[in-house]
Protein backbone atom coordinates (compact mmCIF):
# COMPACT_ATOMS: atom_id res chain seq x y z
CA UNK A 1 0.00 0.00 0.00
CA UNK A 2 1.30 3.47 -0.81
CA UNK A 3 2.44 5.25 2.27
CA UNK A 4 0.61 8.39 3.16
CA UNK A 5 0.78 10.40 6.27
CA UNK A 6 -2.55 10.92 7.94
CA UNK A 7 -1.07 13.83 9.84
CA UNK A 8 1.06 16.70 8.69
CA UNK A 9 2.10 18.80 11.64
CA UNK A 10 4.71 21.47 12.12
CA UNK A 11 6.38 21.64 15.50
CA UNK A 12 8.17 24.68 16.94
CA UNK A 13 9.20 24.74 20.59
CA UNK A 14 6.09 23.55 22.47
CA UNK A 15 3.68 24.49 19.70
CA UNK A 16 2.17 22.05 17.26
CA UNK A 17 0.61 23.57 14.15
CA UNK A 18 -1.72 22.08 11.60
CA UNK A 19 -2.17 23.29 8.05
CA UNK A 20 -5.54 24.20 6.57
CA UNK A 21 -5.74 23.94 2.80
CA UNK A 22 -8.42 24.76 0.27
CA UNK A 23 -8.08 24.54 -3.50
CA UNK A 24 -9.45 26.48 -6.43
CA UNK A 25 -9.02 24.14 -9.35
CA UNK A 26 -9.31 25.50 -12.87
CA UNK A 27 -10.38 22.73 -15.19
CA UNK A 28 -10.60 23.32 -18.90
CA UNK A 29 -13.95 22.16 -20.24
CA UNK A 30 -13.64 19.59 -23.02
CA UNK A 31 -15.44 21.20 -25.97
CA UNK A 32 -14.82 21.92 -29.63
CA UNK A 33 -15.39 25.64 -29.44
CA UNK A 34 -14.94 28.36 -26.83
CA UNK A 35 -17.39 29.40 -24.10
CA UNK A 36 -18.70 32.50 -25.85
CA UNK A 37 -17.32 32.24 -29.39
CA UNK A 38 -17.06 29.70 -32.18
CA UNK A 39 -13.24 29.55 -32.25
CA UNK A 40 -11.53 26.20 -31.94
CA UNK A 41 -10.07 25.08 -28.60
CA UNK A 42 -7.50 22.66 -30.10
CA UNK A 43 -4.28 22.65 -28.08
CA UNK A 44 -0.94 23.41 -29.70
CA UNK A 45 -2.13 25.42 -32.72
CA UNK A 46 0.03 28.17 -34.23
CA UNK A 47 -0.20 31.27 -32.03
CA UNK A 48 -3.20 33.55 -32.53
CA UNK A 49 -4.75 31.38 -35.25
CA UNK A 50 -7.78 30.47 -33.11
CA UNK A 51 -8.82 33.98 -32.22
CA UNK A 52 -12.11 35.45 -33.35
CA UNK A 53 -13.19 39.06 -33.09
CA UNK A 54 -15.04 38.11 -29.88
CA UNK A 55 -11.92 36.54 -28.32
CA UNK A 56 -9.82 39.59 -29.16
CA UNK A 57 -12.57 41.81 -27.68
CA UNK A 58 -13.24 43.98 -30.68
CA UNK A 59 -15.77 46.71 -29.98
CA UNK A 60 -19.36 45.67 -30.53
CA UNK A 61 -18.74 41.93 -30.39
CA UNK A 62 -21.24 40.05 -28.27
CA UNK A 63 -20.76 36.76 -26.38
CA UNK A 64 -23.12 33.86 -27.18
CA UNK A 65 -22.94 30.95 -24.75
CA UNK A 66 -21.95 27.45 -25.86
CA UNK A 67 -24.74 25.16 -24.65
CA UNK A 68 -22.44 22.14 -24.55
CA UNK A 69 -20.16 23.87 -22.01
CA UNK A 70 -23.20 24.44 -19.79
CA UNK A 71 -24.00 20.72 -20.02
CA UNK A 72 -20.41 19.83 -19.19
CA UNK A 73 -20.46 22.01 -16.07
CA UNK A 74 -23.74 20.48 -14.89
CA UNK A 75 -22.46 16.95 -15.51
CA UNK A 76 -19.37 17.74 -13.46
CA UNK A 77 -21.62 19.08 -10.71
CA UNK A 78 -23.57 15.81 -10.73
CA UNK A 79 -20.27 13.90 -10.50
CA UNK A 80 -19.36 15.99 -7.46
CA UNK A 81 -22.73 15.11 -5.88
CA UNK A 82 -23.45 18.79 -5.85
CA UNK A 83 -26.44 21.09 -5.92
CA UNK A 84 -27.23 22.20 -9.49
CA UNK A 85 -28.52 25.76 -9.63
CA UNK A 86 -31.28 26.21 -12.16
CA UNK A 87 -30.52 29.90 -12.36
CA UNK A 88 -27.01 31.32 -12.52
CA UNK A 89 -25.61 34.68 -13.58
CA UNK A 90 -22.51 35.75 -15.48
CA UNK A 91 -20.55 38.63 -14.02
CA UNK A 92 -17.63 40.72 -15.18
CA UNK A 93 -14.49 40.37 -13.11
CA UNK A 94 -12.51 43.50 -13.90
CA UNK A 95 -8.74 43.67 -14.08
CA UNK A 96 -6.10 44.77 -16.53
CA UNK A 97 -3.57 42.37 -17.92
CA UNK A 98 -2.00 42.08 -21.35
CA UNK A 99 -3.47 38.63 -21.99
CA UNK A 100 -7.02 39.72 -21.11
CA UNK A 101 -8.17 41.80 -24.08
CA UNK A 102 -11.65 42.53 -22.71
CA UNK A 103 -10.25 44.14 -19.58
CA UNK A 104 -12.56 41.81 -17.66
CA UNK A 105 -13.11 38.09 -17.41
CA UNK A 106 -16.65 36.78 -17.79
CA UNK A 107 -17.16 34.62 -14.72
CA UNK A 108 -19.88 33.77 -12.24
CA UNK A 109 -19.65 35.45 -8.87
CA UNK A 110 -22.80 35.60 -6.80
CA UNK A 111 -24.83 32.89 -8.51
CA UNK A 112 -22.66 29.99 -9.72
CA UNK A 113 -24.11 27.17 -11.83
CA UNK A 114 -23.17 24.51 -9.23
CA UNK A 115 -23.34 24.78 -5.45
CA UNK A 116 -22.18 22.59 -2.57
CA UNK A 117 -21.02 19.01 -3.11
CA UNK A 118 -18.65 16.33 -1.83
CA UNK A 119 -15.60 14.43 -3.03
CA UNK A 120 -14.55 11.23 -1.26
CA UNK A 121 -10.82 10.50 -1.02
CA UNK A 122 -9.43 7.00 -0.56
CA UNK A 123 -6.51 7.50 1.78
CA UNK A 124 -4.33 4.69 3.12
CA UNK A 125 -5.72 5.37 6.58
CA UNK A 126 -9.35 5.41 5.44
CA UNK A 127 -11.81 7.57 3.57
CA UNK A 128 -11.87 11.33 3.85
CA UNK A 129 -14.56 13.70 2.60
CA UNK A 130 -13.69 17.06 1.12
CA UNK A 131 -16.53 19.55 0.70
CA UNK A 132 -17.06 21.42 -2.55
CA UNK A 133 -18.09 25.03 -2.08
CA UNK A 134 -19.09 25.76 -5.67
CA UNK A 135 -18.31 25.29 -9.34
CA UNK A 136 -18.68 28.12 -11.80
CA UNK A 137 -18.09 28.69 -15.49
CA UNK A 138 -15.64 31.32 -16.69
CA UNK A 139 -13.40 32.30 -19.59
CA UNK A 140 -9.72 31.48 -19.70
CA UNK A 141 -7.25 34.27 -20.45
CA UNK A 142 -4.62 34.26 -23.19
CA UNK A 143 -1.04 33.17 -22.70
CA UNK A 144 1.82 35.57 -21.99
CA UNK A 145 5.26 34.50 -23.12
CA UNK A 146 8.15 36.18 -21.34
CA UNK A 147 11.13 34.20 -22.56
CA UNK A 148 11.15 34.72 -26.31
CA UNK A 149 11.96 38.41 -26.38
CA UNK A 150 14.17 40.09 -23.77
CA UNK A 151 12.42 43.47 -24.01
CA UNK A 152 8.82 42.48 -24.56
CA UNK A 153 6.08 40.12 -23.58
CA UNK A 154 4.44 38.21 -26.40
CA UNK A 155 0.77 37.37 -26.18
CA UNK A 156 -1.02 34.40 -27.73
CA UNK A 157 -4.80 34.64 -27.50
CA UNK A 158 -5.60 31.08 -28.66
CA UNK A 159 -6.62 30.17 -25.12
CA UNK A 160 -8.52 33.41 -24.60
CA UNK A 161 -12.20 32.60 -24.11
CA UNK A 162 -11.82 28.83 -23.69
CA UNK A 163 -14.32 27.55 -21.09
CA UNK A 164 -13.03 26.80 -17.61
CA UNK A 165 -14.76 25.31 -14.62
CA UNK A 166 -13.46 26.79 -11.40
CA UNK A 167 -14.04 24.23 -8.67
CA UNK A 168 -13.67 25.68 -5.19
CA UNK A 169 -13.20 23.30 -2.28
CA UNK A 170 -13.94 24.01 1.33
CA UNK A 171 -10.83 24.39 3.53
CA UNK A 172 -11.07 20.70 4.40
CA UNK A 173 -7.59 19.42 3.56
CA UNK A 174 -4.87 19.10 6.19
CA UNK A 175 -1.94 17.40 4.46
CA UNK A 176 -0.08 17.55 1.13
CA UNK A 177 -1.14 13.91 0.57
CA UNK A 178 -4.79 14.85 0.85
CA UNK A 179 -4.26 17.62 -1.68
CA UNK A 180 -2.66 15.15 -4.06
CA UNK A 181 -5.51 12.65 -3.56
CA UNK A 182 -8.10 15.39 -4.03
CA UNK A 183 -6.66 16.64 -7.32
CA UNK A 184 -6.31 13.06 -8.58
CA UNK A 185 -9.89 12.27 -7.61
CA UNK A 186 -11.28 15.40 -9.30
CA UNK A 187 -9.27 14.55 -12.39
CA UNK A 188 -10.51 10.97 -12.33
CA UNK A 189 -14.18 12.01 -11.98
CA UNK A 190 -13.92 14.54 -14.82
CA UNK A 191 -12.17 12.05 -17.08
CA UNK A 192 -14.92 9.50 -16.44
CA UNK A 193 -17.47 12.16 -17.32
CA UNK A 194 -15.52 13.39 -20.33
CA UNK A 195 -15.84 16.96 -19.08
CA UNK A 196 -12.11 17.74 -18.73
CA UNK A 197 -9.14 15.76 -20.05
CA UNK A 198 -7.16 16.54 -16.90
CA UNK A 199 -3.93 17.05 -18.81
CA UNK A 200 -1.76 19.03 -16.43
CA UNK A 201 1.16 19.38 -18.86
CA UNK A 202 -1.10 21.17 -21.32
CA UNK A 203 -2.56 23.30 -18.54
CA UNK A 204 -6.03 21.75 -18.70
CA UNK A 205 -5.93 21.43 -14.93
CA UNK A 206 -4.24 23.93 -12.63
CA UNK A 207 -4.91 25.19 -9.16
CA UNK A 208 -4.68 28.11 -6.78
CA UNK A 209 -3.79 26.81 -3.35
CA UNK A 210 -5.11 28.58 -0.24
CA UNK A 211 -3.03 27.89 2.85
CA UNK A 212 -3.25 28.93 6.48
CA UNK A 213 -1.87 27.47 9.69
CA UNK A 214 -3.18 27.26 13.25
CA UNK A 215 -2.37 25.62 16.54
CA UNK A 216 -3.61 22.04 16.32
CA UNK A 217 -7.00 21.69 17.93
CA UNK A 218 -7.99 25.31 17.37
CA UNK A 219 -11.18 25.86 15.42
CA UNK A 220 -10.31 29.38 14.29
CA UNK A 221 -8.90 29.84 10.80
CA UNK A 222 -5.60 31.66 10.45
CA UNK A 223 -4.80 34.32 7.85
CA UNK A 224 -4.50 32.63 4.51
CA UNK A 225 -2.24 33.17 1.54
CA UNK A 226 -3.14 32.16 -1.97
CA UNK A 227 -0.50 30.53 -4.13
CA UNK A 228 -1.48 31.23 -7.72
CA UNK A 229 -1.53 28.92 -10.68
CA UNK A 230 0.36 25.82 -9.60
CA UNK A 231 0.33 23.32 -12.44
CA UNK A 232 1.53 20.03 -11.01
CA UNK A 233 0.66 17.97 -7.97
CA UNK A 234 4.31 17.77 -6.97
CA UNK A 235 4.65 21.56 -7.06
CA UNK A 236 1.42 21.94 -5.04
CA UNK A 237 2.91 19.73 -2.34
CA UNK A 238 6.24 21.57 -2.38
CA UNK A 239 4.50 24.96 -2.25
CA UNK A 240 2.36 23.86 0.72
CA UNK A 241 5.41 22.61 2.59
CA UNK A 242 7.31 25.84 2.04
CA UNK A 243 4.38 28.18 2.67
CA UNK A 244 3.15 26.44 5.84
CA UNK A 245 6.62 26.60 7.37
CA UNK A 246 6.99 30.25 6.38
CA UNK A 247 3.71 31.12 8.10
CA UNK A 248 4.60 29.18 11.25
CA UNK A 249 7.94 30.98 11.42
CA UNK A 250 6.18 34.36 11.19
CA UNK A 251 3.81 33.43 14.02
CA UNK A 252 6.67 32.14 16.16
CA UNK A 253 8.50 35.43 15.62
CA UNK A 254 5.38 37.36 16.60
CA UNK A 255 5.07 38.81 13.13
CA UNK A 256 1.83 39.14 11.22
CA UNK A 257 0.89 37.14 8.13
CA UNK A 258 -0.38 39.39 5.35
CA UNK A 259 -3.30 38.02 3.40
CA UNK A 260 -1.83 38.13 -0.06
CA UNK A 261 -1.34 36.44 -3.39
CA UNK A 262 1.94 34.62 -3.79
CA UNK A 263 3.60 32.68 -6.54
CA UNK A 264 5.59 29.48 -6.27
CA UNK A 265 9.05 29.68 -7.79
CA UNK A 266 9.71 26.13 -8.93
CA UNK A 267 13.43 26.73 -9.40
CA UNK A 268 14.10 28.16 -5.95
CA UNK A 269 11.40 26.05 -4.27
CA UNK A 270 9.91 29.03 -2.46
CA UNK A 271 6.82 31.20 -2.53
CA UNK A 272 7.00 34.95 -2.84
CA UNK A 273 4.65 37.88 -2.81
CA UNK A 274 3.19 39.04 -6.12
CA UNK A 275 3.25 42.80 -5.66
CA UNK A 276 1.39 43.39 -8.89
CA UNK A 277 -1.61 41.69 -7.31
CA UNK A 278 -1.91 44.22 -4.45
CA UNK A 279 -5.18 45.54 -5.81
CA UNK A 280 -6.10 42.23 -7.35
CA UNK A 281 -8.97 41.55 -5.03
CA UNK A 282 -10.71 44.75 -6.06
CA UNK A 283 -12.39 43.13 -9.05
CA UNK A 284 -15.56 45.25 -9.05
CA UNK A 285 -17.79 42.36 -10.11
CA UNK A 286 -21.09 43.26 -11.69
CA UNK A 287 -23.59 41.31 -13.80
CA UNK A 288 -22.50 41.24 -17.45
CA UNK A 289 -25.07 43.31 -19.33
CA UNK A 290 -24.27 41.35 -22.52
CA UNK A 291 -25.59 38.12 -21.03
CA UNK A 292 -28.96 37.28 -19.53
CA UNK A 293 -29.13 34.94 -16.54
CA UNK A 294 -28.55 31.30 -17.43
CA UNK A 295 -31.66 29.28 -16.68
CA UNK A 296 -32.02 25.51 -17.00
CA UNK A 297 -35.04 23.31 -16.38
CA UNK A 298 -35.38 20.22 -14.19
CA UNK A 299 -35.97 18.27 -17.36
CA UNK A 300 -32.66 19.48 -18.81
CA UNK A 301 -30.81 18.39 -15.65
CA UNK A 302 -32.60 15.03 -15.47
CA UNK A 303 -31.65 14.26 -19.05
CA UNK A 304 -27.98 14.87 -18.21
CA UNK A 305 -28.28 12.74 -15.07
CA UNK A 306 -29.53 9.84 -17.15
CA UNK A 307 -26.36 10.08 -19.25
CA UNK A 308 -23.90 9.96 -16.35
CA UNK A 309 -21.64 6.90 -16.66
CA UNK A 310 -20.59 4.69 -13.76
CA UNK A 311 -18.25 6.88 -11.70
CA UNK A 312 -15.04 5.79 -9.89
CA UNK A 313 -16.65 5.24 -6.46
CA UNK A 314 -19.42 3.04 -7.89
CA UNK A 315 -17.04 1.20 -10.19
CA UNK A 316 -14.75 0.49 -7.28
CA UNK A 317 -17.62 -0.98 -5.28
CA UNK A 318 -18.66 -3.14 -8.23
CA UNK A 319 -15.09 -4.38 -8.84
CA UNK A 320 -14.87 -5.47 -5.20
CA UNK A 321 -18.28 -7.19 -5.28
CA UNK A 322 -18.12 -8.70 -8.74
CA UNK A 323 -14.44 -9.49 -9.21
CA UNK A 324 -13.45 -10.03 -5.56
CA UNK A 325 -10.45 -7.73 -5.81
CA UNK A 326 -9.22 -5.95 -2.68
CA UNK A 327 -10.23 -2.36 -1.92
CA UNK A 328 -6.66 -1.27 -2.57
CA UNK A 329 -6.48 -3.06 -5.93
CA UNK A 330 -9.88 -1.66 -6.89
CA UNK A 331 -8.74 1.88 -6.07
CA UNK A 332 -5.78 1.51 -8.42
CA UNK A 333 -7.85 -0.08 -11.18
CA UNK A 334 -10.60 2.55 -11.19
CA UNK A 335 -8.44 5.64 -10.65
CA UNK A 336 -8.14 6.13 -14.39
CA UNK A 337 -11.07 5.36 -16.65
CA UNK A 338 -8.84 3.85 -19.35
CA UNK A 339 -7.16 1.50 -16.87
CA UNK A 340 -10.59 0.37 -15.68
CA UNK A 341 -11.68 -0.23 -19.27
CA UNK A 342 -8.53 -2.23 -20.03
CA UNK A 343 -8.99 -4.33 -16.90
CA UNK A 344 -12.60 -5.09 -17.72
CA UNK A 345 -11.65 -6.08 -21.23
CA UNK A 346 -8.99 -8.47 -19.93
CA UNK A 347 -11.54 -9.95 -17.53
CA UNK A 348 -14.05 -10.44 -20.35
CA UNK A 349 -11.47 -12.07 -22.64
CA UNK A 350 -10.24 -14.46 -19.95
CA UNK A 351 -13.57 -16.25 -20.18
CA UNK A 352 -15.09 -18.52 -17.58
CA UNK A 353 -12.01 -19.90 -15.92
CA UNK A 354 -10.69 -16.45 -15.06
CA UNK A 355 -8.03 -15.67 -12.49
CA UNK A 356 -8.53 -12.16 -11.05
CA UNK A 357 -5.40 -12.26 -8.93
CA UNK A 358 -3.25 -12.94 -11.99
CA UNK A 359 -5.06 -10.30 -14.02
CA UNK A 360 -4.57 -7.60 -11.37
CA UNK A 361 -0.93 -8.54 -10.82
CA UNK A 362 -0.06 -8.56 -14.50
CA UNK A 363 -1.77 -5.25 -15.22
CA UNK A 364 -0.51 -3.34 -12.19
CA UNK A 365 2.89 -5.07 -12.29
CA UNK A 366 4.39 -5.96 -15.66
CA UNK A 367 2.11 -3.87 -17.85
CA UNK A 368 2.36 -0.69 -15.74
CA UNK A 369 6.14 -1.11 -15.68
CA UNK A 370 6.32 -1.25 -19.48
CA UNK A 371 3.98 1.72 -19.88
CA UNK A 372 6.06 3.67 -17.38
CA UNK A 373 9.31 2.82 -19.11
CA UNK A 374 8.01 3.73 -22.52
CA UNK A 375 6.08 6.74 -21.17
CA UNK A 376 2.83 5.49 -22.69
CA UNK A 377 -0.81 5.82 -21.68
CA UNK A 378 -2.70 2.55 -21.24
CA UNK A 379 -4.71 3.39 -24.37
CA UNK A 380 -1.41 3.14 -26.26
CA UNK A 381 -0.47 -0.15 -24.60
CA UNK A 382 1.81 -2.25 -26.83
CA UNK A 383 -0.03 -5.34 -25.61
CA UNK A 384 -3.76 -5.56 -26.21
CA UNK A 385 -6.16 -6.63 -23.48
CA UNK A 386 -7.02 -9.64 -25.63
CA UNK A 387 -3.44 -10.93 -25.80
CA UNK A 388 -2.73 -10.22 -22.14
CA UNK A 389 -5.83 -12.26 -21.26
CA UNK A 390 -4.49 -15.11 -23.43
CA UNK A 391 -1.15 -15.00 -21.66
CA UNK A 392 -2.85 -15.12 -18.25
CA UNK A 393 -4.95 -18.09 -19.36
CA UNK A 394 -1.80 -19.92 -20.51
CA UNK A 395 -0.41 -19.54 -16.98
CA UNK A 396 -3.72 -20.47 -15.40
CA UNK A 397 -4.10 -23.73 -17.37
CA UNK A 398 -0.51 -24.76 -16.70
CA UNK A 399 0.76 -24.44 -20.27
CA UNK A 400 3.52 -22.08 -19.14
CA UNK A 401 5.07 -21.12 -15.83
CA UNK A 402 4.95 -17.60 -14.43
CA UNK A 403 8.63 -17.25 -15.16
CA UNK A 404 8.31 -18.26 -18.80
CA UNK A 405 5.31 -15.94 -19.02
CA UNK A 406 7.61 -13.03 -18.26
CA UNK A 407 9.88 -14.01 -21.14
CA UNK A 408 6.88 -14.33 -23.45
CA UNK A 409 5.53 -10.98 -22.24
CA UNK A 410 8.78 -9.29 -23.31
CA UNK A 411 8.46 -10.89 -26.75
CA UNK A 412 4.83 -9.81 -27.07
CA UNK A 413 5.64 -6.10 -26.66
CA UNK A 414 7.06 -5.72 -30.12
CA UNK A 415 3.96 -5.93 -32.30
CA UNK A 416 1.35 -7.20 -29.83
CA UNK A 417 2.05 -10.82 -30.74
CA UNK A 418 -0.33 -13.62 -29.75
CA UNK A 419 1.39 -15.45 -26.82
CA UNK A 420 0.14 -18.81 -28.09
CA UNK A 421 2.18 -18.31 -31.27
CA UNK A 422 5.30 -17.44 -29.26
CA UNK A 423 4.86 -20.56 -27.10
CA UNK A 424 4.64 -22.76 -30.19
CA UNK A 425 7.39 -21.10 -32.22
CA UNK A 426 9.92 -20.98 -29.39
CA UNK A 427 8.89 -24.31 -27.87
CA UNK A 428 8.27 -22.69 -24.50
CA UNK A 429 5.54 -25.00 -23.41
CA UNK A 430 5.93 -26.01 -19.80
CA UNK A 431 7.19 -29.55 -19.14
CA UNK A 432 4.49 -31.08 -16.96
CA UNK A 433 5.03 -34.77 -17.73
CA UNK A 434 5.89 -36.35 -14.32
CA UNK A 435 7.85 -39.20 -15.93
CA UNK A 436 10.09 -36.90 -17.92
CA UNK A 437 10.65 -34.70 -14.88
CA UNK A 438 11.44 -37.67 -12.67
CA UNK A 439 14.08 -38.85 -15.11
CA UNK A 440 15.56 -35.37 -15.18
CA UNK A 441 15.66 -35.15 -11.39
CA UNK A 442 17.13 -38.64 -11.00
CA UNK A 443 20.01 -37.57 -13.19
CA UNK A 444 20.59 -34.39 -11.18
CA UNK A 445 20.59 -36.23 -7.86
CA UNK A 446 22.93 -38.80 -9.34
CA UNK A 447 25.31 -36.09 -10.55
CA UNK A 448 25.27 -34.34 -7.17
CA UNK A 449 25.27 -37.27 -4.77
CA UNK A 450 27.29 -35.51 -2.09
CA UNK A 451 24.92 -32.55 -1.95
CA UNK A 452 21.96 -34.93 -1.75
CA UNK A 453 23.51 -36.54 1.31
CA UNK A 454 24.21 -33.17 2.90
CA UNK A 455 20.59 -32.24 2.33
CA UNK A 456 19.36 -35.42 3.91
CA UNK A 457 21.63 -34.70 6.88
CA UNK A 458 19.79 -31.46 7.48
CA UNK A 459 21.30 -28.81 5.20
CA UNK A 460 17.87 -27.81 3.99
CA UNK A 461 18.79 -24.74 2.07
CA UNK A 462 20.33 -27.01 -0.57
CA UNK A 463 16.79 -27.67 -1.78
CA UNK A 464 16.94 -24.44 -3.75
CA UNK A 465 20.11 -25.66 -5.45
CA UNK A 466 18.31 -28.76 -6.75
CA UNK A 467 15.34 -26.72 -7.96
CA UNK A 468 17.74 -24.41 -9.76
CA UNK A 469 19.55 -27.33 -11.41
CA UNK A 470 16.24 -28.83 -12.56
CA UNK A 471 15.07 -25.54 -14.03
CA UNK A 472 18.41 -25.10 -15.75
CA UNK A 473 18.38 -28.63 -17.17
CA UNK A 474 14.90 -28.02 -18.59
CA UNK A 475 15.80 -24.56 -19.94
CA UNK A 476 13.34 -23.09 -17.49
CA UNK A 477 10.44 -25.05 -18.89
CA UNK A 478 9.89 -27.50 -16.05
CA UNK A 479 6.66 -27.04 -14.14
CA UNK A 480 8.00 -25.62 -10.85
CA UNK A 481 5.25 -27.09 -8.74
CA UNK A 482 5.93 -30.62 -10.03
CA UNK A 483 9.67 -30.14 -9.61
CA UNK A 484 9.10 -29.27 -5.96
CA UNK A 485 6.89 -32.25 -5.35
CA UNK A 486 9.16 -34.76 -7.07
CA UNK A 487 12.32 -33.39 -5.44
CA UNK A 488 10.76 -33.61 -1.99
CA UNK A 489 9.81 -37.21 -2.62
CA UNK A 490 13.19 -38.23 -4.08
CA UNK A 491 15.31 -36.50 -1.47
CA UNK A 492 13.58 -38.03 1.50
Amino acid at each position, binding site marked *: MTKDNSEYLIERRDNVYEVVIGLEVHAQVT*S*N*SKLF*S*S*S*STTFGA*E*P*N*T*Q*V*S*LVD*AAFPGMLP*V*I*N*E*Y*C*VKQAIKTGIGLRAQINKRS*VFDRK*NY*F*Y*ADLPQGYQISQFKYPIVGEGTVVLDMAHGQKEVGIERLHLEQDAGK*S*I*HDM*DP*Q*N*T*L*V*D*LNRSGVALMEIVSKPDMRTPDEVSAYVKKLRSIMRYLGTCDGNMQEGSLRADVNISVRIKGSDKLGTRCEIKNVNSIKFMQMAIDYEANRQVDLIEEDKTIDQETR*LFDTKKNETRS*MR*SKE*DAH*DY*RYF*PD*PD*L*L*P*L*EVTDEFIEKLKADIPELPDDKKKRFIDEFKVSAYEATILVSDIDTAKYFEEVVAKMGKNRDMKLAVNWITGELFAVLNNKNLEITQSPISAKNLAKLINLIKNGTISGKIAKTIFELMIDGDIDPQIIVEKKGLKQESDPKALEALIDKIINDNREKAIEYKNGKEKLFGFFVGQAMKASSGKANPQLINEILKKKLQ
Partner: protein
Amino acid sequence: MTIDLKTIKHISKLSRISVDDAKANKLAGDLNSIFDFIEKLNELNTDNVEPLTSVAETTLKSRADEVKSENIRDQILKNSPDENEDFFVVPRVVE
Protein backbone atom coordinates in the same frame (compact mmCIF):
# COMPACT_ATOMS: atom_id res chain seq x y z
CA MET B 1 -21.44 58.18 -0.17
CA THR B 2 -18.71 60.75 -0.77
CA ILE B 3 -15.88 60.39 -3.19
CA ASP B 4 -12.62 61.67 -1.79
CA LEU B 5 -9.28 62.19 -3.51
CA LYS B 6 -7.98 58.86 -2.29
CA THR B 7 -10.87 57.04 -3.96
CA ILE B 8 -10.31 58.96 -7.18
CA LYS B 9 -6.64 57.93 -7.18
CA HIS B 10 -7.58 54.32 -6.50
CA ILE B 11 -10.12 54.20 -9.33
CA SER B 12 -7.62 55.93 -11.57
CA LYS B 13 -5.07 53.24 -10.86
CA LEU B 14 -7.54 50.38 -11.33
CA SER B 15 -8.75 51.79 -14.64
CA ARG B 16 -5.26 52.71 -15.83
CA ILE B 17 -6.31 56.29 -16.57
CA SER B 18 -3.87 58.83 -15.22
CA VAL B 19 -5.47 61.77 -13.44
CA ASP B 20 -3.43 64.69 -12.11
CA ASP B 21 -4.32 66.40 -8.83
CA ALA B 22 -6.10 69.37 -10.39
CA LYS B 23 -8.23 67.08 -12.51
CA ALA B 24 -8.79 64.74 -9.58
CA ASN B 25 -10.25 67.57 -7.50
CA LYS B 26 -12.61 68.54 -10.28
CA LEU B 27 -13.58 64.87 -10.82
CA ALA B 28 -14.30 64.41 -7.12
CA GLY B 29 -16.68 67.35 -7.26
CA ASP B 30 -18.40 66.11 -10.41
CA LEU B 31 -18.71 62.57 -9.16
CA ASN B 32 -20.08 63.69 -5.81
CA SER B 33 -22.84 65.67 -7.43
CA ILE B 34 -23.71 62.67 -9.60
CA PHE B 35 -23.72 60.38 -6.56
CA ASP B 36 -25.83 62.81 -4.58
CA PHE B 37 -28.38 62.63 -7.34
CA ILE B 38 -28.27 58.83 -7.41
CA GLU B 39 -28.58 58.71 -3.61
CA LYS B 40 -32.23 59.53 -4.13
CA LEU B 41 -32.73 55.89 -5.19
CA ASN B 42 -31.87 54.82 -1.66
CA GLU B 43 -35.19 56.18 -0.51
CA LEU B 44 -36.78 53.14 -2.11
CA ASN B 45 -36.93 49.93 -0.10
CA THR B 46 -35.43 47.13 -2.24
CA ASP B 47 -34.88 44.55 0.51
CA ASN B 48 -36.59 41.67 -1.25
CA VAL B 49 -35.93 42.68 -4.83
CA GLU B 50 -33.46 40.77 -6.98
CA PRO B 51 -31.05 42.93 -8.97
CA LEU B 52 -32.27 43.49 -12.50
CA THR B 53 -29.70 42.34 -15.02
CA SER B 54 -31.62 43.12 -18.16
CA VAL B 55 -34.84 44.72 -19.27
CA ALA B 56 -35.15 42.38 -22.25
CA GLU B 57 -37.99 39.93 -21.69
CA THR B 58 -36.16 37.04 -23.32
CA THR B 59 -34.05 34.14 -22.16
CA LEU B 60 -30.36 33.64 -22.78
CA LYS B 61 -29.68 32.55 -26.35
CA SER B 62 -27.21 29.71 -26.74
CA ARG B 63 -25.39 28.11 -29.64
CA ALA B 64 -24.25 24.59 -30.54
CA ASP B 65 -20.64 23.53 -29.89
CA GLU B 66 -19.37 24.06 -33.43
CA VAL B 67 -16.17 25.64 -34.69
CA LYS B 68 -17.13 28.28 -37.21
CA SER B 69 -14.42 30.90 -36.87
CA GLU B 70 -11.47 30.85 -39.21
CA ASN B 71 -7.89 31.91 -38.81
CA ILE B 72 -7.88 35.71 -39.11
CA ARG B 73 -4.54 36.25 -37.43
CA ASP B 74 -3.34 38.86 -39.93
CA GLN B 75 -6.34 41.07 -39.33
CA ILE B 76 -6.35 40.57 -35.57
CA LEU B 77 -2.66 41.36 -35.20
CA LYS B 78 -3.00 44.68 -37.01
CA ASN B 79 -4.04 46.01 -33.61
CA SER B 80 -0.89 44.92 -31.85
CA PRO B 81 1.04 47.96 -30.60
CA ASP B 82 4.23 46.43 -31.95
CA GLU B 83 4.92 44.36 -35.04
CA ASN B 84 5.39 40.64 -34.99
CA GLU B 85 3.81 38.19 -37.40
CA ASP B 86 2.78 35.64 -34.77
CA PHE B 87 2.09 37.48 -31.54
CA PHE B 88 0.74 40.59 -29.92
CA VAL B 89 3.78 42.42 -28.55
CA VAL B 90 3.46 44.41 -25.36
CA PRO B 91 5.94 45.95 -22.92
CA ARG B 92 7.48 43.31 -20.71
CA VAL B 93 5.16 42.24 -17.89
CA VAL B 94 6.84 39.72 -15.66
CA GLU B 95 6.95 39.07 -11.93
